[in-house]
């Protein structure tokens, strides 16, 4: 069968790139494909153009679902697609969502392709290479320690049913030698370089739950990308209001403080960490700072600029600042940064107004290959 989808596909791509039909730009949205990474669901960007209709607001009214959970349990997803009645049975394809675990390498590859990210040129001794085994295949022979439990039992069950030895009353499954399946490894070569990400976040009163969710999602992708580039990536977390302190990952996204904002406190703590553990000669250092752009005073901002200029930039690969728009933030800090460093490509800033901007922002941060 000859199907002419190519024309439609290239037409769509041209529209997305803004080459034709520019009036459609405002209907463009960042759709997503959902994959899994461990227990987390992750989304892969997918450009979409919506044709507007008269529709009921999906955030109003109630939908119906099926499953466990008490009243108040979040159900995940953006709820746009409630399964009740939309879509077309029959000519709707018999689609199957596969439960696939993606590893960091695969995710990063997809990400690089979608966002057209360049490879990073790392500092340090990159000639040293390190082969690391990855278990991706299945074989019928191998050491017991690598036996694939599920595949082995599945094979045994298959054999017992087809040979008629499976007893439905006493459902015992006993694998024999031929049933056994083993994981097989393949070596993957990685350059041996070291890197650390130091996340800093403003947790003063003006940063709300939504702002933190944006930071959480964005940092997931930053982690993923850098983890694929460097073996042994470390992450550190600093929160600050008027004072800064180090916290663990969970606390970082959950903590809520009130009170003022003194940004330089975070930068000082960050520098102290670098001093103590990460020698700039052998470490790639990535400081990311997220805030809504308010600082206590102009003089503190001056101090921050000085710290970036004289200390952070000499020690780190680059300095990254992400400004998450909030109702209360003035956004002044971003202006101050760009005024001072507009000529310096080692200071990379990004403005994130909503969840839709996350991919754009990742691209801004990582697109320069620092």
């Amino acid at each position, binding site marked *: 069968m000859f199907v002419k989808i190519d024309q439609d596909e290239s037409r769509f791509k041209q529209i997305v790139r803004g080459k034709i039909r520019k009036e459609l730009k405002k209907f463009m949205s960042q759709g997503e494909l959902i994959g899994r990474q461990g227990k987390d669901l992750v989304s892969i960007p997918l450009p979409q153009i919506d044709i507007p209709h008269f529709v009921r607001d999906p955030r109003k009214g109630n939908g119906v679902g099926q499953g466990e959970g008490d009243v108040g349990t979040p159900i995940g997803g*953006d709820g746009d697609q409630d399964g009740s009645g939309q879509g077309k049975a029959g000519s709707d394809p018999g689609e*199957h969502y596969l439960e696939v675990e993606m590893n960091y390498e695969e995710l990063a590859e997809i990400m690089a392709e979608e966002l057209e990210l360049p490879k990073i040129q790392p500092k340090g001794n990159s000639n040293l290479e390190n082969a690391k085994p990855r278990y991706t295949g299945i074989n019928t022979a191998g050491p017991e320690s690598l036996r694939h439990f599920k595949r082995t039992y599945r094979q045994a069950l298959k054999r017992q049913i087809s040979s008629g030895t499976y007893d439905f009353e006493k459902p015992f499954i006993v694998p024999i030698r031929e049933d056994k399946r083993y994981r097989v490894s393949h070596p993957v070569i990685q350059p041996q370089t070291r890197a650390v990400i130091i996340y800093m976040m403003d947790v003063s009163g003006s940063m709300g739950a939504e702002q933190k969710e944006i930071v959480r999602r964005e940092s997931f992708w930053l982690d993923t990308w850098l983890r694929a580039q460097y073996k042994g990536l470390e992450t550190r977390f600093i929160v600050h209001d008027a004072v800064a302190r180090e916290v663990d990952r969970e606390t970082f996204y959950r903590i809520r403080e009130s009170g003022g904002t003194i940004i330089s406190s975070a930068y000082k703590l960050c520098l102290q960490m670098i001093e103590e553990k990460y020698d700039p000669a052998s470490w790639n250092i990535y400081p990311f700072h997220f805030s809504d752009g308010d600082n206590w005073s102009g003089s503190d901002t001056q101090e921050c600029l000085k710290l970036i200029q004289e200390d952070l930039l000499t020690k780190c690969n680059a300095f990254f600042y992400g400004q998450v728009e909030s109702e209360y933030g003035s956004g002044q800090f971003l202006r101050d940064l760009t005024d001072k460093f507009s000529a310096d490509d080692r200071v990379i800033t990004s403005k994130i107004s909503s969840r839709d901007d996350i991919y754009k922002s990742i691209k801004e941060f990582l697109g320069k290959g620092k």
Partner: protein
Amino acid sequence: MIFEVLDWNQINAVAAYGGFPNRYPHWRFGMEYQEISKSYAYGLSKIYEMVINNDPSYAYLLHSNMEVDQKLVMAHVYGHSDFFKNNVYFAGTNRKMIDQMGNHRTRVVRLINKLGLDIVEPFIDTCLSLENLIDSRKVGFTPKTPQEREDLEENNEDEKLVKKLKSKDYMDKFVNPKAFLDQQQKKIDDDEKRHRNFPEHPERDVLLFLLEHAPLEKWEHDVLSIIRDEAYYFAPQAQTKIMNEGWAAYHHSQMMTTKILKDSEIIDYADHHAGTVAPQPGRLNPYKLGIELFRDIEDRWNKGKFGADYEACDDLKEKKHWDKKLGLGREKIFEVRKIYNDVTFLDAFLTEDFCHDQKMFMYGFNTMTRQYEIVDRDFRKVKSALLSRMTNQGQAIIEVVDGNSSNRGELTLKHMHDGVDLKLDWAEETLKNLQRIWKRPVHLETVMDEGKRLFSYDGKEFKNQSIS
């Protein structure tokens, strides 16, 4: 039934076209294709089969399916085909739709060659923006063409004068007293006046109203009628999603487990079937809900668990073991697949026990936490939320109420508000598209945050006014 075996790239493309390989060119098919093929390439989802409502039915199978999967999906699509052919809501659909789609393609390609893609494509977008404005109550009946409607209306032309009773001349003023005649004449005049309301009755088939009355060029008329034809063709599938998938799943399971499966295939079959009917977190899986409901109905009618006696019984234990050995289950489910759609199906057969067994819940958007959360598990609330979501396929109900507003040829639509507001930004853009077709100013009456609003667009400026 005709089966075609396709490779993954072909099946993804056909899926992007909604099952028809010969659709007219449009970027949205390319967008669908990107999503489907990327999702496949990254290993997130896979299309096993597709079937289209046509005579004969066409089914597409994925070349790389395992043999047992191939048998399963063939059994499944026979279920769909049976549903298409026998469910009353499909009675009016075009059974030569493959040819019709090819015809649509030819017409659109001809227009593109003549006028240019840059003229035709934006107009298609405009029409697509309005494609859900059809009358879902008409589904199941062949929509009347404008010509047929005209003929119908001509036959209905009323006499304009009061019919007098026969009488001798000298008796006339007694048999037909003047006061009575005047009263009757007034009634007729009022009727006439109502006639002059335009449209006479509110019209839910907004697309038809536009085709008949909007100042469209011939080619625009052609494009809009293509969009409307396709919308009516697909509508019954949206109206019977749960039943249709449930019916197909019920039958593939019957056929496979009682007739087709070899012993060695049972595990792979079970694995695949479980994947199909697995409830997705927080979603309603139509396969799951449908098959469970059909099985529940079969069981209840086999055991006689229905009717006044059963309802009146308040001994829980007796109810649980109720079995009158009627054996009517099979007959009943075949009757159900013939005359119900999803809304009536759920309304009639979704019982409180079923709702609890299936762990159904109602969810809503919590503006504090900015996420969707479980709100309630009460049967009545769950059922009413479900039915209200599904009424009119979850689409807002919108009617043309006046095609000559303020006697200036302006168009007024009315949104039948049912507790859920319209998505405001989209409503504005859609109204602009409507104006592009109507040319004169257009209005939409609706309700926002419990206050009546009138949205207007005159070609330059969008207005959102409060009205009483």
